[in-house]
């Protein structure tokens, strides 16, 4: 049954551009794909390996930067994109691995600091916007970008799916559950954490590359913005951590909600989004995916408990 749904979903996504011609919707879908890849990549490191990174924006940004610079200098996108991913992984190798030396409680803030450093450096070094030349603008079309993004999404999900179910995957999850115990039974924790880190950042870099390919004009520090660092864990927590479907559901709801609010509500939209966000966090502790097993009864019980406690 699950497999059938999955196939239906993939068919739906593949056939979408043939039915819906609106650039706006397709562009939004690409943005959704970017969110999903970023969230999945984050989840590999955060959900499955237990290393909560608040700095994925840096890797996303590097992927975007490398891809963009290569692409506008006439290197075909199919080469620039993976190179962007590799660039991100390279950065992770240089600065991320030393970060594993930090206590587990410090890793999030240390990576956040990395993200801030990347943002500030790029803002000071690349001051102007990178807009496409008139020639590149003329050759811009949304369909190839959509399918490329869709391909990257499927690729990331498959990669993570198989990685998590393989022997290295077992080691990774063991590290998350109890790093000391895992080390005690002979798992080389640093090796597997590094594997998770490099894979995760490579995928994040690919997501950045898609961003660079999709947008015609943006300031080079836009993909380094801290909100990218926050959105990945946020959407994953909301959707359900340590699952493949969690980041997808979380990204979809996050993006849909914020976009719908933005387009319909006018000045109060972020305020209302904030309220909804708090409500979801308080009353759906397992994330949206847990709605599968939650019932209305449980949620009502929790609201009652909250009322009684105060």
């Amino acid at each position: 049954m699950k497999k059938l749904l999955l196939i239906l979903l993939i068919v739906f996504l593949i056939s979408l551009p043939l039915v819906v011609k609106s650039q706006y919707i397709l562009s939004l879908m690409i943005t959704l794909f970017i969110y999903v890849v970023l969230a999945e990549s984050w989840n590999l490191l955060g959900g499955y390996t237990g290393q909560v990174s608040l700095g994925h924006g840096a890797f996303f940004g590097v992927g975007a930067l490398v891809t963009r610079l290569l692409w506008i200098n006439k290197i075909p996108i199919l080469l620039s994109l993976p190179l962007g991913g590799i660039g991100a992984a390279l950065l992770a190798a240089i600065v991320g691995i030393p970060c594993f030396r930090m206590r587990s409680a410090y890793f999030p803030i240390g990576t956040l600091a990395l993200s801030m450093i990347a943002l500030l450096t790029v803002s000071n070094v690349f001051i102007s916007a990178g807009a496409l030349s008139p020639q590149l603008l003329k050759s811009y079309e949304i369909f190839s970008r959509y399918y490329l993004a869709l391909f990257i999404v499927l690729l990331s999900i498959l990669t993570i799916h198989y990685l998590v179910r393989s022997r290295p995957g077992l080691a990774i999850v063991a590290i998350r559950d109890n790093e000391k115990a895992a080390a005690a039974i002979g798992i080389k924790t640093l090796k597997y954490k590094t594997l998770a880190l490099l894979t995760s950042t490579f995928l994040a870099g690919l997501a950045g590359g898609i961003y660079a390919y999709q947008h015609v004009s943006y300031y080079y520090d836009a993909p380094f913005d801290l909100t990218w660092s926050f959105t990945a864990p946020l959407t994953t927590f909301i959707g359900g951590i340590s699952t493949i479907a969690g980041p997808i559901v979380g990204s979809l709801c996050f993006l849909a909600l914020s976009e719908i609010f933005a387009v319909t509500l006018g000045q109060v939209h972020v305020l209302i989004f904030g309220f909804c966000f708090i409500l979801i966090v308080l009353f759906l502790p397992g994330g949206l995916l847990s709605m599968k097993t939650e019932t209305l009864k449980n949620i009502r019980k929790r609201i009652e408990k909250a009322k009684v406690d105060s």
Partner: protein
Amino acid sequence: MFQTLAYGILNGLLYSIIALGISLVFGVMRYLNIAHGSLIILGSYGSLYLFRFGIDPFVSIPILMISLFLAGIALFELLYSNFVDLVEGLRVQKSLLVSFGLMLVIDNGATLIWTSDEKSITPFYSGMSFELFKGFHVPVIGLAGGVLAILVILALHLFFTRTYFGKSVIAVSQDPEAASLMGVNVKRAFLISFGLSVCLGAIPSVLVGLQAFSPSVGIQWFNKGIIVVMLGGLGNIYGVFPAGLFLGIVEAVSVFFFGAPYREITGLVIFVLVLILFPRGLFGKIPE
């Protein structure tokens, strides 16, 4: 050089006070309150209104402390009391999420009420400074802020070591279960600590208000605060004082080596290096 250093030290003390609030909450109940910066900005708006009624910003501090304390208690009851019973790792995550939502609500609510316009409190002594020797000025406001910061840390120290309640808070931060076995009302300790942490934000409220603020800058101050908390060692409340000074001085000195645009970056790079080389923070006490 000395001039910039002076500003660096005074900035550092401001960072310390902000970090104090964050560290208190984290140390006692393992909550991360991202909205701490936004709450400080709310206090700044409060101070601005009181100023328009003729109340000097420094005089308004006690009023703000009481209001922020009450606000802190209310917020805790409403939002944060829900997941007091969770496992520690989950508590950090949950509180992060809730405070993120809270930050969105506070920042955007403030923008709706007061617009995103910059505000600043400029009393008659704004801009005054003591010229200690030729070319070296110590700003009056900065100095007053620094003195207040030191006084607060001393007062807090007395509170934690001399009062029963203070000692019970320390006990709870070390081991909640043991503390409750000894008769401490853990839930109440959490509640009061949270209120206290927000209340400590009254001093940065006024100091930031005397500089310049707008609804969206809360997170920038939080960022400085969290870095200082980490440098001082998670869970070490007294560590924020030297750590804050360290950050302020590093930023000031970096201007001379790398130039002003890289001031923030240098602070961050040093921060990351410190965490890598000294995994417990500069003065860390908390065990793995």
